[in-house]
């Protein structure tokens, strides 16, 4: 039995080598998405990046993707890309970390790019965006636009990336309205329009009148619009889902990064590294400011510019925990990158309890 399998595997390896040789003229770039490309949010925006590669590099590349890949069952899909001659593979969700590393070990000749990850290898880079910069901006807008003084947030999972986003949003809101209150509901899913909408409705029922979200579908925004309340788009400009109440959206712009990394593989200059881009590098963009008075718009634009130029950091010290204790300031004038990437506490003023 064992010998038979070894033999079969050897045959497969030979077929693989032969296949790779014939496809050498074009660089094959593969993508693994956690949701459907039609989520109009996270996965959709990565797919926009994929198309940008095709547009920029034309016939030098060929791209493919696998969508709705469950994180716990992703190793096979990633390996499927690696063994079909893809030399650069983007795995675009945190949960793909271990599977990506496992497959990368087996295919040292293939380059991997893992989004929002924390572990690298010689052929595995990581990249993420400082979405919390955008969240500080929308926090300020929310506080100015809210009549009830209660703003809402639909979170996916209480992981550091999401928690840091909630904190930045709240700190932004607090900076213009110290008595602002926030309510958070967890959808426990990245993409589940039904659950996301339910979470949003629960918030609206509790007096929330401005909705923010860290889940991938436009459902929370739509739920807000249906009741005439304001909201923010997530990952992509969702204005067509809420033309009357979307204030702005935090847009993930992977295009430049994806094109640059693909070029690097073509040139042979690709190296394993970690990229964390924000408003300054254009990886985070703000959709047009709409449905708000001019003075709020002006404030948002100024804050956006201040963060871009480095004058303002959403996590400038001092930062206080819920219990009032001060967080050690490891990054000089603001919290260090590691502190933001590993954030697992709410800042002072948030009354909810963080699920631990």
């Amino acid at each position, binding site marked *: 039995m064992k010998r038979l399998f070894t033999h079969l595997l050897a045959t497969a390896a030979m077929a693989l080598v032969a296949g790779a040789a014939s496809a050498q003229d074009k660089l094959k770039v593969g993508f693994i998405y956690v949701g459907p490309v039609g989520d109009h949010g996270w996965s959709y925006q990565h797919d926009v990046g994929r198309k940008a590669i095709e547009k920029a590099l034309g016939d030098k590349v060929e791209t493919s993707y696998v969508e709705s890949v469950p994180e716990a069952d992703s190793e096979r899909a990633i390996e499927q890309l690696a063994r079909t001659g893809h030399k650069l593979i983007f795995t675009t969700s945190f949960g793909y970390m271990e599977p990506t590393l496992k497959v990368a070990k087996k295919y040292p000749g293939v380059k991997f790019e893992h989004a929002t990850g924390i572990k690298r290898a010689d052929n595995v880079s990581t990249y993420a965006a400082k979405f919390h910069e955008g969240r500080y901006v929308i926090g300020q807008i929310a506080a100015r636009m809210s009549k009830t003084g209660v703003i809402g947030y639909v979170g996916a999972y*209480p992981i550091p990336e999401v928690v840091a986003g909630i904190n930045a949003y709240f700190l932004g809101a607090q900076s213009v309205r110290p008595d602002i209150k926030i309510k958070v509901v967890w959808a426990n899913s990245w993409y589940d329009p039904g659950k996301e909408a339910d979470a949003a409705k629960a918030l609206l029922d509790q007096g929330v009148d401005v909705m923010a979200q860290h889940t991938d579908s436009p459902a929370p925004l739509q739920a807000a619009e249906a009741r005439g309340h304001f909201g923010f788009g997530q990952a992509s400009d969702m204005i067509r889902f809420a033309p009357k109440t979307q204030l702005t959206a935090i847009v993930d712009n992977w295009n430049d990064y994806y094109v640059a990394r693909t070029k690097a593989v073509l040139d042979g200059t690709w190296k394993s590294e970690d990229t964390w881009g924000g408003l300054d590098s254009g990886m985070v963009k703000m959709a047009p400011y709409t449905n708000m008075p001019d003075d709020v718009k002006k404030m948002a634009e100024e804050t956006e510019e201040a963060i871009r130029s480095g004058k303002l950091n959403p996590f400038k010290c001092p930062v206080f925990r819920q219990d009032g204790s001060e967080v050690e300031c490891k990054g000089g004038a603001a919290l260090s990158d590691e502190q933001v990437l590993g954030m697992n506490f709410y800042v002072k003023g948030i009354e909810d309890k963080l699920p631990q």
Partner: protein
Amino acid sequence: MRIELQQRTAPSAIARLLAPVLALAAAFLLGGIVIAAMGRSPLAALDVYVLQPLSDPWALQEMVVKATPLVLIAIGLSFCFRANLWNIGAEGQFVVGAICGSTVALATHGTAAGAWVLPAMLLLGTLGGMAWAGVPAFLRARFGVSEILTSLMLVYVAELILDYLVRGPWRDPKGFNFPQSVTFDEAATLPFLTDGGRLHVGILMALVAVIVAFVVMGHTIFGYRLRVTGEAPRAARFSGFSEPRTTFIVFAISGGLAGLAGIVEVAGQIGQLKPSISPGYGFTAIIVAFLGRLNPFGILLAGLVMALTFIGGEAAQITLRLPFDLTRTFQGILLFCVLGADALVTYRVRLVRGTPAQAAGRAA
């Protein structure tokens, strides 16, 4: 005019044998029409979906890996379904099995604990699944509560317990606060059958489960009793078969196997606990159980076919850019065809003129 299903007095044995084959053919035909309507070549799709994976050792291996939890769970479910009991919560029993088994892995993490770790994990996983399935069994046997609702609702409870554990007490202290446990030690990981492959020992367990189920179902008094309970509950009662006892036993079997599948998946495939450890195996296994028509070998085959649709579906996304939804659509078509074919074997379809009332009048 209306359609009436009339039970056949003696369903043809040949028809019963051919039904799944014809159903499969019909499913492929319908799937081909859908693909053609999308403007792609059905033949190319057939090649990518079925022929290529079946002729590629890597894909075959992945198929077996993917089928393992499905077959293990479905075998257990077949006992329940045969007895006309509806355990819909295998997903929860899977999760609890994974949690219980993992306690050993986490307690011995970083120690030199030896060969007993893995057997203890498997045992605890099985017992955990059994215990979780015992709740709906008890409620059903004691209070007559619908086991469909209770078993299903316990899925969410199980998922939330796992969620709590990996965010709280079991969180990897070095994991940047991300919700996941430490990765299991070598001693807590199922050995692989080949070097560098993904075939783990759990596959053998699934095979053993199939064979044992076959023997128990077809060649023991217990198996006979199950069938009677399912097909003729009144007769079963008259013959003195205890219904609560049967309920407990079939739930223990199906919960135990689902729990085993859970710990096998964690110890063999994932290597750590995360908030989500199953892409819905417990629910997909219900389809597998019925695709296999509650027959152990049928289930083995159905599990492989279901795994094939996933793997072929991924290949089709990569090479033909066919969306994932097509895979789901095809799984639906497949189940529909198999159940439809079964119904046609058991029943005769008749077109009847007139209203039900008239028909009833005629019958009287």
